[in-house]
C-alpha cells in the first residue's frame, strides 16, 4: 500500500500506455509494424527528451519556459554554422549556447530566489530574439540533407541514431534521479528549499544542475531536429513546451516540486506519442483527436486526484497505527 503511494502514478501512466498500445494494435492494422514502431519511437524520443529535461526542473520545484526559445536557437546555430563551416562545429556551438542559458537560468533563479518561471520568460524572449538574429531574416537551411536522412535511418528496425542519442539522455536522467546523490538533492531542494539548505544541501548547485540539464536536453533535441529537418526557423516553440509539460504532469510529476519520477514523465511522453500516432493511423479528424486527447487528460487528472487521496489515507493509517489495535478485551475507562 505504502510503496504504492510512491509508484502508483508511474504505474497508472504506464498502464494507460499499455492500454493505448493494445487498443491501437487491435483497431489500427499496421500499428505494430516495424516501420510504424520506428516512426512512433522517433516522435516519442523527441518528446521524451524534452519532457524529461523539463521534469528535472519541475522536480526541483521550478519550470523552464526558456526551452521554447532554446530548441529553435540551437537548431538555428547548428544549421547556420553547419552550412558555413562544419556541422560538428555547429552542434558544439549550439550546445554551448544552450548550456550558457541553462547556467544563466539556474544562477539567476538560485541567486536571487526568483521563481524560474519569471526568469525563463525573460530568457525565452531573449533566446527567441537571438534566434531571429541568427536567421537574419533569411531561410536557414542545410543544403546537404543527406546527414539528416542517415540520422533518422532505421537502426535495429525501430531505432535511429537520432532516437538513440535522445533515449540515451533519458536513461541517464532516470539513473541520476533514482540512484545518485545529485538526484536526491534535487528532490530535496524541490520539496523544500529552506529545509534543504538547513540540512546543508546546496540549493544553488541543485538549481544550476537542473537548468543546465534542461537546457542541454533542449539543445540536443533542437540540434538533432535541425539536422534531421536540414532547416531551422526562428520563433518561440511554445506548443512543444506545452506538450512536454503535459507529458510530465500526466506522468505524475507535480509542479509543486519534490514529487514524481522521471519514469513517469517518460510514460507521459509515451502516452501522448502512442495516442497521437494511433489516432492519425486510424485517420481521425483533428477535432476528434483534440477531444480524445482532452478525454485522456481528464481521465488521468480525475483518477489521479481520487487515487492519491485514497492511497494517502492508507499511508497515514498505516503510519499512525504503530501501536497495534486493541486486543479483544477492551479496557474500559471511567474511573475517578
Amino acid at each position, binding site marked *: 500500500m505504502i510503496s504504492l503511494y510512491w509508484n502508483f502514478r508511474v504505474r497508472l501512466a504506464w498502464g494507460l500506455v499499455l492500454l493505448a498500445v493494445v487498443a491501437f494494435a487491435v483497431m489500427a492494422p499496421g500499428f505494430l509494424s516495424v516501420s510504424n514502431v520506428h516512426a512512433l519511437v522517433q516522435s516519442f524520443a523527441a518528446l521524451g527528451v524534452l519532457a524529461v529535461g523539463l521534469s528535472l526542473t519541475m522536480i526541483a520545484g521550478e519550470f523552464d519556459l526558456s526551452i521554447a526559445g532554446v530548441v529553435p536557437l540551437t537548431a538555428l546555430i547548428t544549421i547556420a554554422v553547419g552550412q558555413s563551416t562544419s556541422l560538428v562545429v555547429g552542434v558544439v556551438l549550439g550546445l554551448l549556447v544552450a548550456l550558457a542559458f541553462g547556467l544563466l537560468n539556474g544562477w539567476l533563479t538560485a541567486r536571487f530566489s526568483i521563481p524560474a518561471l519569471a526568469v525563463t520568460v525573460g530568457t525565452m524572449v531573449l533566446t527567441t530574439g537571438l534566434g531571429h538574429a541568427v536567421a537574419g531574416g533569411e531561410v536557414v537551411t542545410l543544403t546537404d540533407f543527406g546527414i539528416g536522412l542517415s540520422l533518422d535511418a532505421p537502426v535495429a528496425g525501430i531505432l535511429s541514431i537520432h532516437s538513440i542519442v535522445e533515449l540515451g539522455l533519458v536513461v541517464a536522467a532516470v539513473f541520476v534521479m533514482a540512484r545518485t546523490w*545529485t538526484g536526491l538533492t534535487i528532490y530535496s531542494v524541490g520539496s523544500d528549499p529552506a529545509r534543504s539548505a538547513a540540512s*546543508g544541501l546546496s540549493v544553488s548547485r541543485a538549481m544550476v544542475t537542473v537548468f543546465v540539464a534542461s537546457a542541454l536536453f533542449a539543445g540536443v533535441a533542437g540540434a538533432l531536429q535541425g539536422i534531421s529537418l536540414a532547416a531551422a526557423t526562428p520563433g518561440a516553440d511554445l506548443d512543444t513546451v506545452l506538450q512536454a509539460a503535459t507529458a510530465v504532469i500526466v506522468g505524475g510529476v507535480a509542479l509543486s516540486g519534490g514529487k514524481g519520477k522521471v519514469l513517469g514523465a517518460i510514460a507521459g511522453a509515451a502516452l501522448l506519442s502512442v495516442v497521437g500516432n494511433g489516432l492519425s493511423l486510424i485517420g481521425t479528424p483533428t477535432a476528434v483527436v483534440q477531444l480524445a486527447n482532452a478525454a485522456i487528460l481528464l481521465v488521468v487528472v480525475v483518477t489521479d486526484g481520487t487515487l492519491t487521496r485514497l492511497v494517502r489515507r492508507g499511508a497515514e493509517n498505516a503510519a499512525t497505527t*504503530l501501536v497495534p489495535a486493541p486486543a479483544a478485551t477492551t479496557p474500559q475507562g471511567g474511573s475517578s
Partner: protein
Amino acid sequence: MEETPRTLLAVSGVGKRFGGVQALDDVSIEFRAGEVHALLGENGAGKSTLVKIIAGVLEQDTGSVDSVGGATGDADDIAMVFQECSLIPTLSVRDNLVLALHRGGAILRRSTLEAAMRSALSRAGLDGLDLDVPVEVLPLAQQQLLEIARGLAADSRTLILDEPTATLSDVEIAKVHEVVRSLRDSGHAIVYITHRLAEVFALSDRITVMRSGRVVSSGRTSEFAMDSLVADMLGPEHRIPAPGAAPVGGGPAPDGPRLIVEGASIEHRLHGVSFEAPAGEVTAVFGQIGSGADDLVRALAGLVPLSSGIVRLGERTLTGFDRAGSQRHRVAYVSADRVVEGVFLTGDVVRNISSGALRRVSRGGVIRAAAERVLARDTATRVAFDPDRIHTQIGQLSGGNQQKIAIARALATEPVMLVLSEPTRGVDIGARAEIYAALRDLAATGVVVVVYSSDIVEIRELADRVLTLFRGCQVGDHRVDDTDDARILADILHGAAA
C-alpha cells in the same frame, strides 16, 4: 571531580541582526565534550538563531564560532535537530535518513545504509517504522522523533537539539533523555534547548540563560535553582502571572453549552470514546502517539470524520461537519503543526488573527480595516503578544511568538468551543503561564475548552479534568486535583485502569 572537560566548540562575540532586530549581541559560550549544555531563555531570546549560526545555517554578523579540539572542520562535525521540522516532506523516511547518513560519493547505496538507519530509528524509539512512507504523512510527534533520529544518524561530535521534546509525551521524552545521556557518556557535546524546565535539572550538566540576545547567566546546573532560573529568563521586571480565573469547583459554573461525545470512533484509530465536557472547564485529552488522543481532538474540530458516534454541543449536533462547518458553529481549533497549519507564515499578524473572524470585521462582505486592526491588537494582548508588532510578518517571529498568534487566531473567532492541540508547544515559561491564564479566562466566560497535550505538567496547570487514552480506547477520566501523575501515566502506558 573538578577537571574541566575538553572544549569542543567555542562561540565568541557573536552578533546577528535581522533588519531592526538585534537577535544576538556579543554572545560567547563554550561547549564541552561529555556535557549536556542547556540553552534557556524566553521566546525570541535568540537561542535558535545562535544554534543556527553554530550549525552554519545562518551567517553571523560579528564574532566567530570555532571548533576547538576538532580535527575536522566546523559544520560537518555538528548535527542539528531543528526547532521547526527540517525533514523533507515529500521524501521517504529512508531518503531523509540518507540525506543525513551519506558520506561522499556520487552513487547512493541505500541498501548498505539500511542497518545504520534502523539503528538510528530504534535509538529514537521508532522501531518498525516503514522506511518507504513519505515523511509528510507521519504524525507530528513521529516527525519530531525522526528528526532526532536524523541527528543521531550522523553521529557527529556535537549534537544540537532545539526543543526536541516540544511535542513528545513523557514516555517518548524519557527515551530521548536516555539517548542524550548515552551520547554524553561517550564524549559528545550536546546543546539542548527546551522550555520544559523540569527536563533541565534532570538532564543537563551546564546551563546558559539568554535574554534579548545576550547571555545573562551561565554555569553548572547545580549552581541554579528553579526560581533563579526563571528570574534570569524573564528578567527582573517580570513575574509569572497568577493562575487564571475560575479554579475548579470554585464559584458557579458559567452559562454555556455542554459538549457531549457518545461512542466516537474512527476506523483503526479510535474506539467508542464517550465523555461530557461542561462549559467553563478545561478538559484535557492525554495519551501516547497512536493512542488516538490527537485524532479525537482533530475529529472534534471537524478535521477528521468520525466513522461512528455522535458529537453534540448544547442543542447542536456537530457530527458530520467538516472544519468549515464546525467553524461556522463556532468551534475554533489550534493546530499543533504550527508551520503547516497553525499560521500563514508569509502573512502579517493582523491577517493571521482576522483569518477566522472575517465576518466580525466586515460589513456587507467588505472588510473594515480599522476594525480588523482593533481586533488584532485586542487579541494579541490577550495572548501576551506585543500589540505594536501586529504588522510584522509571522515568519520573522520566534517560534513561541508564532504559537501565540496561532492561539490568537482561534480566540479572535469568539468560539463556543475551543479545541487545541499542544497549545504551548515551544512557548516560554512566562508566556505559557499567560496563555494558560487566557485559556482559563476564556473557559470562565462559558466556553468549552478541550486540549490535547503530551505534557503532563501542562495538564496539571491548565486542565480541570483529564481523559486518558490507550490504543484508541478511553481508559481513564480523572479530576486533575484528585489524581496524581503516576496514575495518569499508568493509564496511558498500559491502559491499566483500576
